[in-house]
């Protein structure tokens, strides 16, 4: 059985040709040791397991509460499977390093919290325009600035979306349990590889530090996606070609394909352009490659929603309080339902539109002063009332607060 599993894994890793056979063997051996084990781990540790299962090859970061455990665990686990771990001088350099590693052909990741995430924004923008796949984990804490290092918050929702200047689309995923930290990390890698773009995994302090049990699969329980490499000879390769999918194949530096990478708006060959037709075509492609993929990117979970009159729309750790509140409300005879967003951006527009047609009110609990609620309002378009429920005192929203809101709305 185990032999079969490793064979299958090797088969899947074929795409990353830069991985030495030795590394592959090491990786397979390492994953075999804890395969199928039931473990009690924290969200941060699960994120590490997910990253390794997805084939992480390079991590650069600067430890910061509450994301420290990700760096800590990877500093030993990643070299053990043949990957590279670097503790950088700061988050600006961390982001730059993972972009460089990704261009060189490795799956790369960094992990940080609010203050570091602010520093990374400039280079995330570079990652978007240069179309470099990478994963940025932001374990949210209270802000702004140094803020509340050990307290939970969900204040970076809009920063994740609009932290960089200029028009752009970004993919942001938000787990609410330890197991989901694992699966969504793999998905984050998959999306970044498939759509050649940085993907942000937005965790929060509660999810990051909470320990739950989960079964570590022998290998990733979700098929791992690797970036498409050019199949044409180097002289034919057009690095930023407008392909039907909108995602051009990506050659690694050192594979023999020479091309230019820049943060300037560029033409199909990667060189700066000021031609209006090329500018518009390029920026449109960056947008549409994400927009076209909405169906795959958007993950929304609903429960008790069929006959619901009041819906509680939440994400991250808040959704766990929401679920408790709704089950309590249901016991009392209320018609309450749950909508949980696993994907925050691109925003699940259709889901909210449809929801707003069926319920009288949507309650949006958030551990901030009201960020995603604006988006919900915008797409509910007055078809139902949208009620914000905000808490920003460094504590988790209690189920009773949400229950109170449900009863008040009813």
């Amino acid at each position: 059985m185990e032999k079969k599993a490793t064979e299958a894994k090797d088969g899947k890793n074929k795409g990353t040709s830069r991985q030495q056979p030795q590394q592959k063997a090491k990786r397979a051996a390492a994953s075999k040791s804890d395969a199928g084990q039931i473990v009690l781990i924290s969200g941060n540790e699960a994120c590490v397991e997910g990253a390794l299962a997805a084939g992480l090859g390079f991590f650069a970061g600067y430890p910061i509460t509450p994301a420290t455990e990700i760096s800590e665990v990877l500093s030993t686990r990643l070299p053990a499977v043949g990957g590279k771990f670097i503790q950088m001088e700061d988050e600006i350099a961390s982001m730059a390093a993972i972009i460089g590693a990704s261009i060189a052909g490795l799956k790369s990741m960094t992990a940080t919290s609010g203050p570091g995430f602010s520093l990374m924004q400039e280079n995330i923008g570079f990652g978007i325009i240069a179309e470099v796949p990478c994963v940025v984990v932001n374990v949210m804490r209270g802000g702004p600035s140094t803020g509340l290092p050990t307290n939970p918050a969900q204040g970076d929702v809009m920063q994740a979306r609009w932290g960089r200047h200029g028009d752009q689309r970004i993919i942001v995923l938000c787990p609410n349990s330890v197991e989901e930290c694992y699966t969504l990390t793999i998905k984050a890698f998959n999306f970044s590889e498939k759509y050649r773009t940085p993907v942000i995994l937005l965790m929060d302090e509660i999810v990051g530090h909470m320990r739950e049990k989960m079964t570590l699969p022998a290998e990733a329980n979700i098929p791992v996606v690797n970036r498409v490499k050019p199949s044409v000879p180097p002289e034919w390769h057009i690095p930023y070609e407008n392909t039907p999918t909108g995602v051009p194949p990506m050659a690694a530096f050192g594979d023999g394909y020479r091309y230019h990478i820049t943060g300037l708006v560029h033409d199909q060959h990667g060189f700066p352009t000021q031609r209006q037709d090329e500018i518009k075509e390029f920026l449109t492609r960056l947008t549409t490659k994400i927009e076209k993929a909405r169906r795959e990117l958007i993950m929304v979970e609903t429960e008790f929603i069929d006959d619901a009159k009041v819906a509680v729309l939440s994400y991250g750790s808040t959704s766990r309080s929401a679920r408790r509140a709704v089950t309590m409300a249901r016991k009392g005879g209320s018609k309450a339902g749950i909508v949980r967003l696993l994907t925050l951006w691109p925003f699940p527009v259709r889901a909210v539109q449809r929801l707003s047609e069926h319920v009288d009110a949507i309650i949006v609990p958030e551990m901030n002063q009201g960020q995603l609620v604006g988006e919900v309002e915008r797409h509910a378009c007055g078809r139902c009332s949208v009620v914000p429920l905000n808490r920003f005192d460094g504590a988790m929203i209690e189920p009773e607060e949400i229950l109170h809101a449900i009863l008040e709305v009813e």
Partner: protein
Amino acid sequence: MKIEKERIKIRIAGSGGQGVILASIILAEAAGIHDGRYVCQTQSYGPEARGGNCKAEVVISDSYIDYPKAKNLDILMCYNQASLDEYFMDLKETGTLIVNSDLCSQIPISTAYEIPMTSLAREKAGSLQAMNSLSLGALAEATGVVSKNAIKAAVLSRSPKGTEALNMKALEIGFLEGKKAVGRAKNRAPAKFSRLILMND
């Protein structure tokens, strides 16, 4: 529909360094991995984890746990007086209190299970470091939230090499002393007006 059954909320509290967090992890592993139930463990994460009042919580349930924090506690185990003072009011009316009577002099209810954990660990088990193993044994015996076999397996898998025998011995002492403490608590007449504030679940 996944509605929680039998949600048991446990808090272990003490001074940072007493092994509060490790004890909670072992308890969660015993209930989750070895007893096969749903568990969720959370802990204080500030500088208090290195000194000062430190707490760690475990929620155990037979079904999916949504809200991960422990409020209105079923079981509170305190390793020192300061943590007992701070967290006693979070214990529910019918909850179980387990205290380290060596370091707790003012125990607010007569039904508490008083166990001199520090002295037992040092003198009977042979090392103060085995105190949290001992306390987990007492907790398992006195409350039954985890099976004895599960807690044994969990402690064993977390014991550093060379300390397995010490920890097993401490655990056995814990089982024994837990039973004794329950007996002692039963024999005491219940004090009146022991709690002034009543809280609803």
